[in-house]
């Protein structure tokens, strides 16, 4: 009896360790995918907050707006969510121009207290959220596409396309923006606005125009990020708040305005969150990004790749 009882116990032990190793591997893969997705969420904010110094706290709310637009066109016409995200990006771009115009006229130009600009975006966030709640309710909504349920398996590692497709699109978008801002004239002008807008003015370029277009660009990323979000998980209007911590933590941690820093920070946060969710349970995950943010602000406010002195003053 005793001898018969022992082997299963051994096997069981071995199984458990194998199981958690598999779990760890899968958590890492999911973490990397999640990190890429987070980079897509925060790349727009790294332009508006990092380069233009506009604290667009409504950024996640616009992502949710983009996600709901995808949901509407997907459920009515069966269009692919990513396609909808790309098509609606120009509309978001125009919306961004409009918002920056108001922001510039009413706050930036007259040198209003930063408090009012913050309150303006906070109000915008709240309005977007409440309008979405009034039109769609607080039920979770999702999109349908063939690849969403598909899952590839390599040995012990599962690759759900629900995560992989957004990851791939996000990486293309982030690298594209990185190339755009380092290689093109306009991208360099955008960096220049952040460094010295007076010098830019002396070069005969209107910094307000550059900032307006850059802000439009940052809002256009919301449309695509929204499409990725609704592919990854079902959404409801108020989930946007949960991403405020993520996006600001990533942008600050990455060093303000640094696109590659943003990507690295997003990967770190994605991995951390995936590991915590896997081993401690999903109810803890909202606290991670925000705790990371508070710790970063308290101990390393210049971020990983940031310029010294960015956050103080």
């Amino acid at each position, binding site marked *: 009896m005793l001898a018969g009882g022992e082997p299963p116990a051994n096997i069981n032990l071995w199984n458990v360790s194998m199981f958690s190793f598999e779990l760890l591997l899968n958590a890492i893969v999911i973490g990397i995918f999640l990190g890429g997705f987070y980079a897509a969420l925060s790349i727009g904010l790294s332009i508006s907050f990092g380069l233009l110094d506009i*604290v667009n*706290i409504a950024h996640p709310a616009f992502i949710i707006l983009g996600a709901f637009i995808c949901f509407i066109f997907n459920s009515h016409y069966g269009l692919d969510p990513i396609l909808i995200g790309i098509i609606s990006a120009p509309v978001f771009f125009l919306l961004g121009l409009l918002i920056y115009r*108001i922001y510039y006229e*009413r706050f930036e130009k007259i040198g*209003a*207290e*930063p*408090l*009012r600009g*913050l*309150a*303006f975006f*906070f*109000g*915008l966030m*709240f*309005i977007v959220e*409440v*309008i979405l*709640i*009034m039109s769609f309710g607080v039920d979770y909504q999702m999109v349908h596409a063939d690849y969403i349920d598909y899952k590839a398996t390599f040995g012990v590692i599962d690759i759900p396309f629900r995560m992989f497709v957004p990851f791939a699109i996000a990486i293309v978008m982030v690298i594209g923006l990185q190339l755009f801002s380092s290689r093109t004239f306009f991208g360099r002008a955008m960096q220049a606005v952040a460094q010295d807008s007076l010098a830019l003015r002396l070069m005969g370029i209107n910094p307000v125009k550059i900032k307006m277009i850059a802000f439009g660009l940052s809002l256009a990323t919301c449309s695509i990020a929204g499409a990725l979000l609704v592919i990854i998980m079902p959404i409801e209007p*108020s989930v946007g*708040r*949960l991403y*405020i*911590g993520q996006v*600001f*933590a990533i942008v*600050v941690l990455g060093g303000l305005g640094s696109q590659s820093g943003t990507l690295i920070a997003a990967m770190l946060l994605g991995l951390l969150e995936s590991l915590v969710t896997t081993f401690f349970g999903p*109810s*803890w995950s*909202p*606290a991670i990004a*925000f*705790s990371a*943010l*508070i710790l970063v*602000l*308290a101990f390393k*406010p210049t971020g990983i790749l940031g310029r010294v002195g960015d*956050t*103080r*003053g």
Partner: protein
Amino acid sequence: MKINRFYLGIGACLVLSYLATAYVDNQYYFFAGFAILQLMVMALAWNILGGYAGYVNFGSAAFFGIGAYSAIVVLELFDATFFTQIIAGGCFAGLIGFATGYLTLRLRGVYFAIATLALLVVAETLIVNWDYVGGAAGAYVLPTKNPTILGVLIVGKTEALFGNYKELLFFIMCMITLATIVICRFIENSKFGRGLAALRDNEEAAECMGVPTLKLKLIATSLSATIMGITGGVFPYYMTFIDPVSAFNLDISVNALAMPLIGGTATWIGPVLGALILGGLQQVVTVTISSSANLLIVGLCLVAFVIFAPNGFLGLIKKYRKNGN
């Protein structure tokens, strides 16, 4: 003479609110009144940091919720009385406010704002995962039967100071509101308040003139958080039930920030006026249309006021008078 008039007004409000609990029968008035007073205290507390010092706090709901849950914790631990509970709520929220301020107030104001928003989510997550205080499901608070102070029956059907708990809580909320108004007015006229105003206008210059900016900011943050915590401490008793969603609701933060900005941030009159206008409007809209419509109105008013009337309602009145003359 003017000071006396102010304190006379405060005293008259206190007496009036007690008389109201004795002679008004319709319970809806106490319900609506409590809601407006709660908004008013939160707005006044927000204004101590936001209006006087220019630091935006998005996490008012965090301090409110921390106050509410501190009350629950001391109730569970020691079976504490109601007054101990609200004091515990205030103290603990004040401590958290101090810690948050200490970590982030040396950075630009924007980071303090984002950190307070972060605090809101972290605090809610902790409470959701803490089963001792009810976790995500929430907890019930049952008021004690026939409470007495110094042998006097406070709540009871006959021969008591108050007819029921809602009236008692309404009166307590009135006392808290009036006390907060006195504190705010005191700050405005004190050296402390002038220091805050100096650092709001130009922090570097204030620092150079010898204003201990970090110390003042920390005191303002702790004081503001303490008042929010006390308000939160009353909340579970009022609702007789509390859950993380209602205690840490973003609506509380939005209201606390919108009311001073709509009324005017320079003096205590602004938040009071903002709370009366917006709170009254919300009560009407909630009853006649829907509760999500009332949130939309708050958002629209907030954006409209920050864009078109940067000095709030009081600023508008001042401008109108100037044009009239």
